[in-house]
């Protein structure tokens, strides 16, 4: 199981580099799709397929789609992406940083990674990810509500920051 996990994690880091090096929001969001896909695959290989499902559905299918549509309404008509020289320079810097980090940590034994689901003695499985969601709604009720309130606060903050056509300094319109 080591080789696919390694491959997906490496793809995750490369996708993050693509996200960081792109000046255009569309291609950065494409990099984010790639990153989420790699992260979801790592989750599946560890047995947490429900978490991967929720990630792809809510993050990619909900938030990223909304981001893509809103940035398509407001952002640049001639996006610059991986082919241009400036982006290639950023890519070179990030990859060299990745190389330096790899020199230091490659081959080191870290903490052992666990598995989120395993089969019991009888008919049944222990699914850590789904049980975690159940806990979040039962014992973690107050934390869930606080997280919900924090997300609502984020909505109000964003609404207040971008309020007013051509009045604020954040918008180009």
């Amino acid at each position, binding site marked *: 199981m080591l080789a696919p996990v390694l491959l997906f994690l490496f793809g995750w880091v490369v996708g993050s580099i693509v996200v960081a090096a792109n000046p255009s929001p569309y291609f950065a969001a494409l990099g984010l799709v790639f990153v989420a896909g790699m992260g979801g695959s790592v989750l599946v290989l560890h047995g947490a397929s429900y978490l991967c499902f929720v990630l792809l559905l809510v993050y990619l299918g909900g938030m990223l789609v909304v981001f893509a549509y809103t940035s398509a309404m407001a952002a640049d008509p001639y996006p610059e992406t991986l082919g241009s020289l400036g982006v290639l320079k950023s890519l070179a810097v990030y990859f060299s940083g990745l190389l330096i980090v790899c020199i230091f940590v490659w081959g080191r034994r870290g903490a052992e990674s666990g598995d989120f689901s395993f089969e019991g003695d009888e008919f049944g499985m222990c699914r850590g990810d789904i049980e975690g969601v159940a806990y979040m709604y039962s014992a973690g009720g107050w934390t869930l509500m606080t*997280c919900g309130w*924090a997300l609502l606060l984020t909505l109000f903050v964003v609404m*207040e*920051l971008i309020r007013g056509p051509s009045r604020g300094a954040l918008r180009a319109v």
Partner: protein
Amino acid sequence: MNPYVLAILLFGLGLGTTITFASSHLTTAWMGLEINTLAILPLMAQHHHPRAVEATTKYFLTQATAAAMLLFATTTNAWITGQWDIQQITHPLPMTMLPLALALKIGLAPLHAWLPEVLQGLDLTTGLILSTWQKLAPFALLLQIPPHNPNMLIILGLTSTLVGGWGGLNQTQLRKILAISSIAHLGWMILVLQFSPSLTLLTLILYFAMTFSTFVVFKINKSTNINSLATSWAKTPALTAIIPLVLLSLGGLPPLSGFMPKWLILQELVAQGLLPTATITAFSALFSLYFYLRLSYAMTLTISPNTPMGLTPWRLHTHQSTLPLAVCTMTTIALLPLTPLSITLFTP
């Protein structure tokens, strides 16, 4: 700003600090810090001019980076030791990263570069909230993390006091001066954190009173640079008479209360055997004293009130409520005789 939105934002500010205060789990502490960061962003950008929006963007980027570092230290600690309690951190990697993340959050040197620019872009009230309230939650965490490397906190503290001295020497903008004084006072607080956390808390509370007085006096005078302070004798003569005492208390002169934390911290450092550190820190307070003295000079000590040489500003009736200012000014000036009581109050 819409009063409902303002109410939600202020509630978020209170909630974030409360959550961090009440948490023993690192994730809920991080949640409180993030709620604080988010809630203050529209307050900072409420005037919507480019300088304010620039300050908001810089603040958001630095605080998000600090929160990400905090989360990274949290997850590393969870991965290595399997537990999430703040007071039970034992592995050196998260124990080193957490104070550095919190140092970026509050603006300690060498992670201080954002603070003068951010504070310069804000109005005085929001700057006050930033300088006082937003420091509470990170300090709640800093006070709970078991100290690991004695040198790191001392280096952070020393660098902060020195930067807080040298950085303010050529400044004329009041908000930058207050930011740099914040860096210096935070340096004093961090120096003594591992030896006597109650002294850190005492310094923090006294710093709140002193900086509250200064911010509110500048707000009443509607002045943001030293030149506009020179006409404050015509606007509020009583405040003009008191403000040198407040500023010298910030500088740490006896018999004002600002002397109390510096004295106790130097005593604690000497008791721990850190004589060169104590000497350098005491000398750095001289630098800070220079620009506080310059502010007092420009405001009160130049020429006695007489016929003005230029156009005087309008003296409109201010709607600033005076009770908080009165309380904080008296705390800043007259609390030194109550030093034993203050020590007892903050010792658990």
